[in-house]
């Protein structure tokens, strides 16, 4: 296996990034859902949001890397068995996942930086507030963050179901390619 993608298979880096992002997205969703319901006296009340924000910033950086890598090393061609609509739907779906993730992460950033506070990433570095003090910034960003998070997690679920459908019903290499298998 090699780092770069080839026309017929994914390279190691793309595969690692894919599964890392999948883990982070579902992890952040669960963490976010859980932390907003925490009791004020819970020992996690302060650490869970810090963790959520820190991982979120790191995920943003990973997603930037992933996007750049995708431009540098394009994804393999669609499987020959995939028809026009399948290709179109998968392109649109992937585009929505990328775009949605970026909007989701930016909306989260805009909540925490709405009053000019920086976001601390595990004490390693701080991301300064670039946009703050917009009218109702934290509330609007908060609504976007909440609804988009649900939308994306449901959409990622559909993405996973589609992969399983390809694997079990169409019996093609779609899912296995994401584990490094060749197209045929």
């Amino acid at each position: 296996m090699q780092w770069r993608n080839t026309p017929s298979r994914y390279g190691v880096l793309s595969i690692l990034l894919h599964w890392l992002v999948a883990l982070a997205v579902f992890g952040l969703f669960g963490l976010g859902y859980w932390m907003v319901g925490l009791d004020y006296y819970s020992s996690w009340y302060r650490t869970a949001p810090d963790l959520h924000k820190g991982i979120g910033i790191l995920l943003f950086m990973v997603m930037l890397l992933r996007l750049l890598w995708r431009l540098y090393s394009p994804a393999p061609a669609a499987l020959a068995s995939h028809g026009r609509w399948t290709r179109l739907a998968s392109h649109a779906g992937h585009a929505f996942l990328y775009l949605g993730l970026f909007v989701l992460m930016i909306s989260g950033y805009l909540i925490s930086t709405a009053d000019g506070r920086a976001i601390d990433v595990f004490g390693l570095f701080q991301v300064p507030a670039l946009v703050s003090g917009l009218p109702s910034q934290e509330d609007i960003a908060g609504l976007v963050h909440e609804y988009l998070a649900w939308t994306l997690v449901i959409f990622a679920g559909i993405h996973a179901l589609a992969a399983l459908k390809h694997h079990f019903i169409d019996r093609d290499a779609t899912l296995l390619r994401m584990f490094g298998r060749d197209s045929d």
Partner: protein
Amino acid sequence: MLKKTLAALALGGALFAGQAIAADYAIDKPGQHAFINFKISHLGYSWLYGTFKDFDGSFSFDAAKPEASKVNVTINTTSVDSNHAERDKHLRGSDFLNVSKHPTATFESTSVKSTGEGTADITGNLTLNGVTKPVVIQAKLLGEGKDPWGGYRAGFEGSTTLKLKDFDIQKDLGPASQEVELILSIEGVRQ
């Protein structure tokens, strides 16, 4: 001598004003010489202060007949500000003020009882988070008189203590933080 005359004139003016029928005042919103603040204990260790930035109201007041006074205040609860965006977002949400459901809080006085020189208990109905309950605001006249720009002003400060649970505020902030003190510090311009 001149000073004494001026003082006498001022006193006369004040007395004359006092004898007039209760005058109507509008809260000085344009100049924002009015604040509605709150404070609540944090863990029992410190005070957390916050404010409602947007509110309006009026009162009528006559120093000679404080019992005839009336107060009306409407607060835009969305304007809550505790100098921390994430907390303010939380305060606006369903754990606290439910501002999307209850965007305004109101206080309307029902009776005023003088309790001493320049002090009074203002009883009225407070509607907050959709719950209406009678509360008593202990108020103090801070001062009144002509302003330097041709108007006439009167200022009060009053406070009342609310149990969060009484106003259906769900979040439990701990044993030291069951109550919040609402502080109204208001200057009115006579209309």
